[in-house]
């Protein structure tokens, strides 16, 4: 049974251990029709596209984390549309692990109400499997970033996902030295977009939650001994994941993270979904810092489903030419 989620801060290990398939919901190629009756047109197309998906496909339930104002309201909207939902209050301000552990305890109760079964052994198994998947994805991306795979693994059983990534690693070839571009943004579930960068002569690196932000974690250095410490492990794991603009960090950790990622890149592309407030607030100041480092920077604004890949191509090719 599929349990849909939208944000990479969702504790998918818990959903999985309860016997459900954590399924990341993205906008698809389907035009947005039904969703327009539920939410205004100035919501981002990731929200509208996901809602469209939820209204048309079969899901057991949906899990939300408060990431932005749109997602906050989307939980209720999904519920109003007749869906089973739960919102986990992942803190906006990164730091208080204890508080979040309590939220996770409550989430376990919700999973039980949904017919799931959570215990320590099963949770440890899921934690191990996802860690393995994350490490394999890191390996694959170090050879050659594969966005089609990174997106696909978020919608299939983790054991199959590991097998899939293993296969990809076997056939992947180390990318040749080429000018490198860092693509930063929220989601872009269309693999073709990344191909455009390659075809224009770039090698690609990313800071996206359909890319590395799905698998970049620094894991806590303790071994859980019971369910509670496993929850603490999850809380710390997610608080220490690659920083996201929807969260507030000490010492501007998010900016520092992107600037560091950009160090070995020639160009940076902000691949932003129209109406994505957290990213658009960061954009001007982050751009200024990146340009200060001598990087070529471009902004490409997207709406899903992407109607004109060729427009993106023109922008990317123009950027490639100035390097």
């Amino acid at each position, binding site marked *: 049974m599929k349990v849909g989620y939208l944000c990479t801060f969702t504790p998918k290990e818990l959903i999985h251990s309860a016997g459900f398939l954590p399924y990341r919901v993205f906008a698809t190629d389907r035009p947005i029709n039904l969703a327009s009756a539920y939410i205004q047109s100035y919501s981002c197309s990731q929200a509208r596209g996901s809602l469209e998906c939820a209204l048309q496909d079969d899901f057991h339930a949906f899990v939300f984390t*408060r990431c932005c104002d749109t997602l*906050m309201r989307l*939980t209720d909207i999904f519920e109003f549309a007749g869906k089973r939902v739960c*919102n986990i209050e992942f803190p906006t*301000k990164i730091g208080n692990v204890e508080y979040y552990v309590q939220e996770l305890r409550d989430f376990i109760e919700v999973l039980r109400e949904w017919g799931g079964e959570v215990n320590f052994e099963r949770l440890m198994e899921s934690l191990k499997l996802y860690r393995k998947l994350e490490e394999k994805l890191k390996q694959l991306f170090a050879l050659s970033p594969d966005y089609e795979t990174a997106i696909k693994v978020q919608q299939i059983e983790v054991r199959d996902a590991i097998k899939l990534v293993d296969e990809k690693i076997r056939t992947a070839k180390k990318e040749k030295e080429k000018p490198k571009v860092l693509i930063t943004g929220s989601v872009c579930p269309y693999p073709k977009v990344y191909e455009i960068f390659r075809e224009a002569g770039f090698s690609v690196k990313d800071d996206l939650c359909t890319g590395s932000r799905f698998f970049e974690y620094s894991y806590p250095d303790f071994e859980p001994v019971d369910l509670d410490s496993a929850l603490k492990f999850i809380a710390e794991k997610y608080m220490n994941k690659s920083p996201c603009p929807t969260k507030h960090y000490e010492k501007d950790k998010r900016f520092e993270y992107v600037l560091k990622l950009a160090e070995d890149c020639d160009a940076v592309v902000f691949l932003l979904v129209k109406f994505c407030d957290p990213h658009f*607030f960061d954009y001007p100041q982050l751009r200024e810092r990146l340009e200060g480092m001598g990087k070529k920077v471009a902004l490409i604004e997207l709406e899903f489903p992407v109607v004109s890949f060729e427009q993106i191509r023109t922008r990317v090719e123009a950027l490639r030419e100035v390097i």
Partner: protein
Amino acid sequence: MKRLRISEKMRELMTGYYMAGMQAECNAWITSGAPVELLHALDVYPVYPENHGALIGATKLGGYYCEFAEKNGFSRDLCSYARCDIGCVFAGTSPIGGLPKPTFLFACNNICNTVVKWYEVLSRIFKVPLFVLDMPFIRKELKDCHLRYVEEQLYDFISFAERVTDRKLDDAKLRDVVLKSMESVELYSECLRTAANKPSPMTCFDAFVNMAPIVCLRGTDHAISFYKEMKQELDERVKEGVSAIEREEIRLLWDNIPVWYRLKWFGEFFEKRNACLVADTYTNAWSGFKVSRGEDVLSGMAEVYTVSYLNIGMEMTAEIINKLIDLYDVDGVVMHSNRSCKPYSFGQYEIQKKLSVPSVIIEADMVDERVFSEAQVVTRLEAFLEML
């Protein structure tokens, strides 16, 4: 429309408030839903960029100042309070000569997460510390862990502010400020409630114009004396049966932040059609900031500020609106779908279906007059009023 005398006083009071800000030794820029009592207790002057945004909107200069932010890369799709305010920072001025440079920043996300990003931007521009008071979204129930989480942060905030200002928070003073805050909120709520009379002595436009003191001066004597006087004037009107508009035939409720640059236009539009917007959800939101009289000030504060109007689930929101519909006995609701305020606007389609009276949605923006489409708004509102 019969203007309230008190609006003149409000102008004086707020001019004084802004002047005082220029001279304050230390100030904090604060979001409209944050517990300002803590600042007053520390003698830190509170600066309200949102109020500033509203003021700019009302002077019809929203678009002009937004452009300064847009020229610096800020998207036109971002909140127009944020955009015009950041724009003023770049412009180095505003209709009131700009806001004083902050000593520190205090953002509370019980109204939106946008303020966190907005204040991060400010923190980088001014290179001053920012404290984020993180409030969990209360979709269904307020849990103990939510309250503990918020309360701990209130203590963190006090340490933070004491460190930054090199001052010490005095418990007695905080208690005093909280009492004053409660009193002003009570008086303010009484003012709003006079609109339950028929005919209503005030419109929501009066409420919009006179809300600044409850936002900026809550917890001070100024707010208390202001709303006392406002209450007096409204009571007089009620006694004499004075109606706020010429002829009140239809009573309406407004939802969302006002369209600041069109207050007068909307006021006249409705009055011409004998419709009175007697109340609104926006100004009523501040009537909820009633810190309890309990022993522990901070835990009371944690609770009141966590369940603020924009930080609760849609079911509760619809319930509140239905209560307002009953209280003010309105015939319909005008919902402003505000491009600038996603948490206020998303969900309106669903809330609409839960309301006990008919409603209409109009699309606009609170400050950015460039996106206002008069013809569309007129068509929708006229059809709605005819239907009523």
